[in-house]
């Protein structure tokens, strides 16, 4: 595609962390501007392996996946890779976790991507999503007008590329899936958990089924935006009689979600299964834990006089 300056530029968007977190809006926005967008493919083992090779061990599992996506795009010889810098909530009281706000710095320091290839627009966010100013800055940096930005943003906001449809299940328990969007929506990262649960006869409800919870709900008092979102959703489903239990996907070494997991264990009434997701992949171990949890749900329903699930 030809950007206003007259040159052809292919821009890579990593299908990871921020892509899922903001419902794919960056890729749609760039597409709406007419930019040639290359969205990296869904995560697979080779992508993760490339990230893992580059990243220090202590960084969390999703960051290793993210870096793998950037490495993939660089290998595809895109001209630029867009990695937004998420600065914080407009209210200055909620923030992304530190590694997530430093993705561009980490990628640059690891040498995965040249400085000149990085496109790093700064975004603030509000309760419903990313602020307009960030999109304007991104469009401006590519030479597009404010009018073109507004039109592309309007189109981009209309659809959500990351929305998943979930079937009605087969009479088994209804489970609420909670966790960061980039693990609940990334099938490789979460061991295809939705399909596994459906095969076990469960109905799985995700954040989208819970209505418009917004990006960063206020009122929890929490410092980290996504932890607030998880907490809100868990509390919401804890109140809903049609949800029988919660499955919390906790990526390895995620500090904020570790706190939330411990907090939820002590404060919610519904049974909750916390699954730590990491690079050690054992489908047998995963299936065993899921089966045990569903079995437990069925037994506890009978124990309290409910129907057998």
């Amino acid at each position, binding site marked *: 595609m030809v950007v206003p300056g007259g040159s052809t530029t292919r821009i890579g968007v990593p299908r990871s962390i921020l892509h899922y977190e903001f419902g794919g809006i960056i890729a749609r926005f760039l597409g709406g501007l007419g930019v040639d967008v290359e969205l990296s493919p869904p995560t697979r083992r080779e992508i993760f392996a490339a990230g893992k090779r580059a990243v220090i061990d202590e960084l969390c599992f999703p960051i290793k996946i993210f870096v793998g996506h950037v490495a993939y795009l660089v290998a595809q010889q895109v001209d630029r890779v867009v990695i937004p810098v998420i600065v*914080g909530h407009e209210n200055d009281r909620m923030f992304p976790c530190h590694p997530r706000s430093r993705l561009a710095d980490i990628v640059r320091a690891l040498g995965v991507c040249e400085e000149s290839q990085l496109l790093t627009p700064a975004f603030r966010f509000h309760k419903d999503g990313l602020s307009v100013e960030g999109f304007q800055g991104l469009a401006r940096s590519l030479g597009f007008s404010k009018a073109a930005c507004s039109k592309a943003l309007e189109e981009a906001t209309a659809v959500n590329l990351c929305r998943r449809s979930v079937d009605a299940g087969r009479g088994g328990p209804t489970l609420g899936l909670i966790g960061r969007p980039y693990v609940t929506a990334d099938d490789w990262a979460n061991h295809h958990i939705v399909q596994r649960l459906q095969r076990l006869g469960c109905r799985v409800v995700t954040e989208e089924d819970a209505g418009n919870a917004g990006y960063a709900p206020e009122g929890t008092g929490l410092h980290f935006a996504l932890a607030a979102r998880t907490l809100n959703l868990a509390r919401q489903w804890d109140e809903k009689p049609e949800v029988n239990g919660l499955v919390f996907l906790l990526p390895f070494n995620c500090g904020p979600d570790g706190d939330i997991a411990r907090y939820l264990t002590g404060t919610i009434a519904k049974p909750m299964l916390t699954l730590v997701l990491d690079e050690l992949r054992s489908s047998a171990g995963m299936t065993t834990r899921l089966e045990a949890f569903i079995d437990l749900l069925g037994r506890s329903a009978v124990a309290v006089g409910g129907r057998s699930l």
Partner: protein
Amino acid sequence: MNHFTFSWGSNYIAVRGLLRALGHELSSPPRITPAIVQRGIELAHPFLCFSGKLVLGQIAAQLEKGDRRLAFMSSLGPEACRCADTCDYMDSLFGGYTGFSAHRFGGGSFDQALANLRSHFGPSVRRHQVVKAYAAFLGKVDLIHKVEKRCTALRCLAATPGRVRELKREALQRIDRAAGPAALWRVSRWFDRGAGSLPLREEGPALRVGVVGGEHILCELDSIMAVIEETAERGIFLDWRGGFRLLARATRASLEPLKEKCRGHLHGAPSTSEVFSCAHAVDFIREGYDGLLHVYAFGCMPQTAIKPILQRMAASAGVPLLSLSIGDRFAEEGLENRLEAFIDLLQARKGKGVGK
């Protein structure tokens, strides 16, 4: 009313100064021992940073002793971390202790600080009392910082390190007892005279090492950092510029020059301890320090995020960097071995004139 808190090294003394200015008292937190570390590990989720586990261990130990009113100091803006949202979390962990309450002081502005104090002590807290309390707090934070930093330097430079340790102990006790700015000023003068009168070694430092890292760990000079600080007595000049003082005094305006130093390494994401670490590493490299020590708690998100950035900075500048992650399996022997190897490497480089 008696409160308790966690240590932040010696900075609990400053929190006590704030409470005393409001007519309340604060117990001295227990020293960090293996039993306290173990208690924290048992209480916390494994992904909580090691500093957080130490905090939980210290809180549990004091609750078991009978204390009930936890008060802790935290900023509320981007400099904050998990500690900004811990009250509910602490309630969920320690609510079983009858009468337990957790309250956070601090704030990104005077009005927030006032509101926080009023929410704990009631609406009768007046503005002038808050000014007085925070003057005591910040005055003590500054003086504690000065004493600890200068005493660490003197452990390398003075001919009698034992007298340095005595001077520090006495200075901290005097800071704790000091009531009001005039008394603090007298302690400061007394300390300056004492430090100035110590005889110095004839030879200068063998090496200069800049220390950067997580504020919680850097503050713990008498426990976790003790092993690192002891290297000063082997002629290693240790310097650090972060710590609790920087967090307590951080404002948007004061962060700007630090962010400017980080340009080229960090984008404009929220400012937390990684900005401090990065800016100070830039300074140490520019000032020709022989090596960099990056000390942080395992699981500390800002410091984990900054680690690859520091590694790249150090590699580009040709300055050796040792990253010390302090975690659940912290053992003094392991730390000593790594430090010794690092210092040997620095000495060998210096001997060969590498990097100069």
